[in-house]
């Protein structure tokens, strides 16, 4: 009986989702964005693969993850940022504004059950919106393209968590705000805030950069690079769940404002605690086929033997490309194998009004077990050699071959325009019309 009643509620939420114009419009727009991303990606990939008798790039540099999957699924990052939150907001705000919430709150289910059905329906709606993206995968395979299952599944997981976060934020904002428009402003404010954090924290280190690692854009980026980090998954899940719990707290209109405020404060402390604890989790898996997030196997084995803490002091400004190079090619990988690792960023901006002229600019200081050494190189092998030297470890043999073959493919995006620009929108409109009858 309880299950039947829950299923009734679930079916009601699905009906509400399917009667939402925002949802159908999102589906149409997502299809067009995916189509554009896919067609452009296929053409670019074909060019660098030597299409039209042009020079081919090094095959090792051609990975479908970077060349096809990420640009195609980039549409979903845009949708999760600018479209999906409004679908989530509508699912709650309409019931608040129309008075339906007063009936809903009196139905036999618990408020947690009611919010859970909304969450389930939103997740299903998000996965349904993946159809064009999955169609792009299928098309790529029919062209003879290569897909590496672990990195593809990891990318999907990233987009799943990104959608879940948008749904949590949207539902939470709708429950907190008086109207749908206020909830939209709250959601957009949060999004712009995370963009600003991303921008400001780049290459600055410290708490700000640690926080910036978990903005939706940064979190998704690690999945796009084939890296599955446990801390990212835990933080994204905690924040998403937090949004849904905020909704359960604030939709309970029978509780006084003070109690709801106290419950929210307790929740914020709890979610912050989970995020701080989660951020300390160091487990990560490099699921990329070309092991882009890992050092050579021999280096990794040697680095894992080092137990003395390493401190790096980097005198490079955030806008300096050498810092980006160091971050992307060395520090990111070091964090996965070397614990504990402390990185201090010293230099400020070197351009414009705030130009600084530190004597040490460009230096990278390595400190381990009381010994210090300085170098200016950001090349992976040089940095590792400095670490081995400080740790008194021999440099391992790096003669192993990189066996990633690369997957060049010069094809035309056959049928793609027809599917994404005609068949998909027509299917969406037809389904909308059929469901409205």
């Amino acid at each position, binding site marked *: *009986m309880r299950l*039947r*009643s829950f299923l*009734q*509620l679930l079916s*009601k939420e699905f*009906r*509400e989702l399917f*009667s*939402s114009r925002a949802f159908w419009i999102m589906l149409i727009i997502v299809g067009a964005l995916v189509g554009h991303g896919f067609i452009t990606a296929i053409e670019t990939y074909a060019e660098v693969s030597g299409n039209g008798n042009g020079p081919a790039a090094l095959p090792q540099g051609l990975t479908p993850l970077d060349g096809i999957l990420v640009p195609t699924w980039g549409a979903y990052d845009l949708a999760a940022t600018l479209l999906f939150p409004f679908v989530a907001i509508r699912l709650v705000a*309409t*019931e608040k504004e*129309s*008075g*339906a919430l*007063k*009936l809903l*709150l*009196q*139905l*036999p289910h618990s408020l947690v059950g009611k919010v859970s059905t909304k969450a389930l329906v939103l997740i299903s709606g998000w996965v349904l919106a993946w159809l064009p993206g999955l169609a792009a995968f299928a098309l790529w395979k029919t062209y003879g393209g290569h897909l590496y299952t672990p990195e593809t599944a990891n990318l999907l997981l990233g987009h799943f968590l990104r959608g879940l976060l948008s749904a949590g934020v949207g539902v939470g904002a709708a429950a907190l705000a008086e109207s749908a428009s206020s909830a939209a402003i709250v959601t957009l404010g949060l999004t712009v805030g995370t963009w600003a954090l991303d921008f400001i924290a780049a290459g600055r280190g410290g708490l700000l950069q640690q926080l910036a690692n978990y903005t939706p854009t940064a979190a998704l980026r690690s999945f796009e690079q084939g890296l599955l980090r446990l801390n990212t998954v835990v933080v994204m899940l905690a924040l998403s769940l937090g949004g849904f719990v905020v909704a359960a707290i604030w939709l309970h*209109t*029978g*509780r*006084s*404002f003070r*109690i709801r405020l106290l419950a929210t404060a307790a929740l914020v402390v709890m979610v912050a605690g989970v995020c701080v604890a989660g951020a300390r989790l160091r487990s990560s898996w490099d699921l990329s086929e070309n092991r882009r997030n890992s050092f050579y196997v021999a280096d990794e084995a040697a680095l894992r033997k080092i137990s003395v803490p390493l401190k790096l002091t980097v005198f490079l400004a955030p806008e300096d490309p050498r810092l980006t190079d160091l971050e992307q090619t060395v520090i990111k990988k070091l964090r996965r194998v070397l614990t504990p690792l402390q990185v201090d960023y010293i230099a400020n901006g070197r351009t414009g009004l705030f130009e600084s002229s530190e004597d040490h600019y460009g230096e990278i200081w390595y400190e381990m077990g009381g010994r210090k050494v300085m170098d200016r190189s950001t090349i992976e092998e040089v940095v590792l050699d400095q670490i081995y030297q400080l740790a008194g470890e021999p440099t391992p043999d790096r003669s192993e071959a990189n066996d990633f073959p690369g997957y060049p493919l010069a094809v035309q995006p056959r049928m793609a325009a027809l599917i994404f620009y005609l068949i998909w929108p027509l299917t969406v409109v037809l389904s909308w019309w059929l469901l409205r009858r």
Partner: protein
Amino acid sequence: MNPYPVVSELLTVKGLTKKFGARHVLSDVSFNVRFGEVLGLIGPNGAGKTTLFECLAGLLSCDAGNVKFRETNLTASQRKESLFYLPDAIVPWAEQSVKWALHFFQRIYGQSQARLLKLLVPLRLEEIERSRLGTLSKGERKRLILALGLLTPQPLLLLDEPFDGLDLRQTRDVMSLVREEAASGRTLMLSIHQLVDAGRVCDRLVLLSDGRTVGEGTLTELRAQANLTEGGLEEIFLALT
């Protein structure tokens, strides 16, 4: 076997107080609802009728007071097990059809198809079954909301302005449906601002003015409270406020 003690009071409200900021919307409101009666909550616009109903239903928090159901204290979250409140002027699920809304409530509460069919004719819902809720007139919406309420199983039903927006014939039909429901053992509490309607359908009345209960009882009892020998509800209300 009836698990509840045999008492004539189904619901006892004592000292209910609700403030919005510094403004007292309900001040020390107390009254009883007796088993199987139709109790009218009478008061002008702004008297606090809707706020009182929402506090009783647990949709709004109270600042003071308690609500007992069959002599047992009810917390706000337990209220939905004992009573169901039908708000006035709501347009729920505007994109869904009348038929869907009726079936949704019927299935959620495990009511029989016969029970649903029994409501369709007197409330004239058959003719609008396929319409979307957002396209209904005020009266049609009111009839549908009433049907949804009658599909709920709670022993006490709170109806906010059930005759508002209904024409003469519809009002008469709804009144007889309300009386039938009470005759079947269900208790109803109606908030009404039209005194004529209240006098015709209610067994007893609670008069609310500026968030305070100024009288409670049958017409005769209220007349006595107002020290009047004759006169209708209008005179009684004016004398007591």
